[in-house]
């Protein structure tokens, strides 16, 4: 299907890449269908793009990139809510906030996006751990990670392994191989 987005133009999304958020996200309860867009830049940041509303997309990143010891401790009810039998079926992302002073960028560690890769159901799960922050500043950690592996593109594949995203870079049709959908053009603002 084709989806018109404000950020990436018109994207072609495979049915099997559509992720269903039965409860939406907090504050966006009416938006239930999303897909992941990979803009293909060096930041390792992906976008969780709404299908229902082309204007809505959330920048997301895997928390282990900037916080290797992060564990999303899911209780049985959480696992059930996204039909998970084991955490290995899941892909975990944090939503990012990028203010005008980018060095104060932050990630929501308290309420990660948990995606069941096989069933394509997902939820923003609020973790019980009271030490986790909704706005965890992580610019420094992300920078040191990116600088460390900037010269080694091969590592990138390992990090983004199993989730299906839409690749917004101009190399088309690799979506089959790694399961990411792709956009025809790079973001116009870039």
């Amino acid at each position, binding site marked *: 299907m084709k989806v018109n987005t404000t950020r990436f133009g018109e994207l072609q999304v495979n049915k099997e890449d559509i992720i269903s958020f039965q409860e939406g996200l907090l504050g966006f309860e009416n938006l239930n269908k999303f897909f992941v867009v990979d803009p293909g830049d060096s930041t390792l940041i992906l976008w969780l793009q709404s299908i229902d509303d082309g204007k809505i997309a959330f920048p997301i990143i895997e928390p282990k990139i900037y916080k290797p010891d992060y564990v999303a401790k899911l209780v049985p009810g959480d696992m059930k809510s996204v039909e998970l039998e084991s955490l290995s079926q899941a892909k975990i992302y944090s939503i990012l906030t990028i203010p005008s002073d980018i060095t104060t960028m932050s990630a929501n560690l308290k309420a990660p996006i948990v995606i069941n890769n096989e069933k394509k159901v997902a939820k923003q799960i609020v973790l019980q751990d009271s030490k986790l922050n*909704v706005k965890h500043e992580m610019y420094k950690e992300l920078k040191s990670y990116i600088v460390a592996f900037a010269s080694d593109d091969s590592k990138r594949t390992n990090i983004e392994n199993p989730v299906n995203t839409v690749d917004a870079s101009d190399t088309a049709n690799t979506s089959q191989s790694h399961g990411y959908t792709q956009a025809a053009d790079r973001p116009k603002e870039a």
Partner: protein
Amino acid sequence: MLVLTRKLGESIAIDDNIKIVVVQIKGKQVRLGIKAPQETKIHREEVYQAIQDQNTEASQSTPADIARLSDALTKK
């Protein structure tokens, strides 16, 4: 909404396995004790508000923000 009046030390039972006790009353503050199965999620309401605010702020980001970030991140 069901409204119940409770005194210090009294409690409310929800289902068979959740119990909320008034532990302390001090001026405008009430301390509650909650006994619930481990898998029950208990949060202060403000947590949800903070997450909602973060989501709203995040949804307004643009690829231009990421481009700006990308420049800064790749600078040695």
